[in-house]
């Protein structure tokens, strides 16, 4: 009943075995292979069979025949694998095309594409900065592009605008801190290859201190100044006092922590000599004529500077309190005297009530 089924299955098994035992493969085994210009380029043509063979050939669609190195290896099951290796240390654009691996009976094909990507860097401009990636050797149908900055994908929004071909990125109304390294990432539709090319947005060095123009510090306290810098490539930060560069090696009180993007200057045990202009300077080799400085004036105040106004105020309070107190005492004494006087008079009037007429007569007379 199952005979035809069993027979066809057996045939399938035998055929697969036969095919596998004489197998021609190309490595890498993809339909399409992409390379960047200048990369190492390697193709292998491999035949597995009962014995080694010399018939392996690598051809290109334009008719070129490539000779490589032939090598053989005996496998565990007795078959022999012959490999034809073709390698080139630096791929060129002309290496693109269809490669065929053949051994007179069979052939395998592979598409190879070679591309060259040229980054178009940009320099800071307050209106708009455009970065681009030019690609030669592939058409727009072959890939898609994603722009990234520091592993964050950028999309079309208020700040960024990506062109139709997605080969340019425009940064609208950029700020200094938008500078840095961006990447255009090519994802090829066939061939499982991603290409990441860095594109630079050069920005002039920029230094700023989030402080007022001057600062008063007490004697013996600690000065801490923080300087934030922007720019691409990363600027060098130098601290100055007036015209003199501050060097931590020469003065143990001074220490400088960090460079870009945040640098901190610490000076302990301040003394009156430390009064002056302190400057944070950002400079970059890429922009030799544009160094930027941020300045702050530091004044050193006497430790006891606040004491005098304090004593004056407290004295004023005490004096005023005493004055008010005395006035109140006097007023309440007057009130008491009046009250006592009134009661006395009333008492007198009552005592001498009878004698009033006599008195008054005497007075009148």
């Amino acid at each position: 009943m199952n005979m035809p089924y069993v027979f066809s299955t057996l045939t399938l098994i035998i055929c697969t075995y036969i095919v596998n035992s004489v197998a021609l493969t190309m490595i890498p085994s993809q339909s399409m292979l992409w390379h960047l210009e200048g990369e190492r380029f390697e193709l292998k043509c491999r035949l597995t069979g009962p014995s080694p063979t010399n018939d392996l050939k690598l051809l290109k669609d334009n008719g070129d025949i490539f000779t490589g190195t032939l090598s053989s290896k005996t496998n565990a099951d007795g078959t022999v694998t012959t490999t034809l290796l073709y390698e080139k240390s630096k791929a060129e654009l002309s290496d693109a095309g269809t490669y065929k691996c053949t051994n007179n009976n069979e052939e395998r094909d592979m598409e190879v594409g070679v591309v060259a990507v040229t980054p178009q860097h940009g320099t800071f401009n307050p209106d708009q900065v455009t970065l681009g990636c030019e690609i030669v050797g592939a058409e727009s149908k072959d890939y898609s592009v994603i722009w990234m900055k520091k592993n964050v994908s950028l999309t079309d929004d208020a700040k960024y605008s990506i062109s139709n071909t997605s080969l340019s990125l425009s940064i609208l109304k950029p700020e200094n801190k938008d500078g840095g390294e961006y990447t255009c990432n090519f994802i090829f539709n066939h061939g499982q290859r991603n290409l990441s090319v860095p594109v630079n947005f050069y920005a002039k060095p920029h230094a700023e201190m989030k402080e007022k123009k001057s600062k008063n510090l007490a004697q013996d306290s600690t000065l801490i100044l923080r300087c934030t810098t922007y720019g691409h490539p990363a600027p060098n930060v130098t601290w100055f006092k007036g015209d003199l560069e501050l060097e931590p090696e020469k003065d143990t009180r001074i220490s400088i922590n960090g460079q870009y993007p945040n640098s901190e200057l610490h000076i302990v045990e301040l003394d009156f000599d430390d009064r002056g202009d302190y400057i944070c300077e950002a400079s970059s080799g890429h922009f030799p004529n544009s160094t930027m400085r941020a300045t702050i004036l530091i004044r050193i105040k006497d430790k006891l500077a606040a004491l005098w106004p304090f004593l004056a105020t407290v004295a004023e309070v005490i004096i005023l309190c005493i004055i008010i107190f005395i006035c109140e005492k006097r007023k309440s004494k007057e009130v008491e005297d009046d009250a006592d006087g009134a009661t006395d008079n009333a008492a007198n009037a009552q005592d001498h009530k009878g004698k009033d007429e006599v008195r008054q007569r005497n007075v009148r007379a």
Partner: protein
Amino acid sequence: MATHKPSPPWLIILASFLTTAFGACITYGTGVTYKALRDRYNESVVLTSWLGSLALAVFSIGGPVGSVLINISTCRTCIVIGGVLNLIGYSSSYLVTDMNFLFVTFGVIGGLGQSLCYSASLVIAGFYFEEHRSLASGVAVSGAGVGMLLMPSYTQYLIDTYDLEGAFLLLGATGVQVCVFALLMRPHPLEQKRKLQPGDTKISQNIYRRSNMCSGCLEHFGILRNKEFLLFLVSTVMWHIGNSIVLLYLPSYFIYRGSSFVEAASIMLMMGAGSIFSRILVGFAAVDENTGPRILYTGILGLSGTATCFLSYFASTLPGKVVYTFIYGLYTGGIYALFNSILVELLGIEKLASSFGATLLACGVGTLVGPPIAAFLVVGESENYEPTFFLAGLCIIAGSIFQILMTLKCQFKLPDVDGGTCAGADDIPQDNIKGNLADLQYPTEIQMKRFDDC
């Protein structure tokens, strides 16, 4: 003890205003000192912000302490003590090198001084103005508004010129000015009546003082027996929970909805400005007998609460944000002007000191409980401000509802001996006081009651 003539009312208003402005607002500069403290001592964010919370907590707990002090002595003495504590607390921060000591000097001592000045200054305004109590309280409390506005800039100026220690020293000097203002405020006869007995001698005065101290303490618990007052306290706690949440998260929320840092800060300033105006305006409005302080209180809370619930709609545009902030500042600032009137209506003038202290404590409890609850919601829901503000709005509306409950309860309640009545301004205690200052019968009754309490 000689009978003092009362000071002229305009002097009381002025002195009260200046006392709240100079003596009770130094903690408003905490935001500025926070930054300077972080730079100087480099302690953690949590520890440094704790200082501000501690000052606030002490400010509230100091409320009842102030009540006891006022009951034992006079409002004036309380302010003087507050001024001295300000001086000791802030100026000794000048000598501090370890930040942990600051908690004691700046936080506890200074905070207590502030609290005493605030309570006593408002209570004395309550004593002096039976007719226009709300207006007087409004002006006194607007001193706090002015302080709120000016103190941060003033503190920043001091730190810039004299560095942190010098700033502390001079803040103490600023705080002690209240002693001068206090001496100008002579005790009102009403206050003195609480102290004097007919034919007082030294011995009876001593007995009196001792009894007053313990009765003063018992008085605090006594006032809690009054159910309307309890409802009022609950209402206060509820709306302070909502209020503290709004104040804490409003700037961050505005930034989240698109404002810049500077913009958000300026909008908050508007709230301070609105609050100053409203304290006087509301005080003024409450004098009108038809409205009355309680209706105003209910209405204000209801409106602010509802506005807060719908904050997300306001916050979508810049004008909306400004309008909301101004309204909020306008309303919630003004409520403080009504405290005095409502408390006197509920519990009578003699209990004003105690009830004010308890109310201040309730404010503090609400303000301290609010942020942790909100943090739980905001952090739990990751930056989800809308439910937080909705909750805050609901709390404020709840405060309003409790206030309505309190009013309703009052309508159906008979006047009782327990703790005054709550029917209105034209009731027994006020009549007596308006009538004859020389009438000593009423105080004697109170006297007897106090002895009983003891």
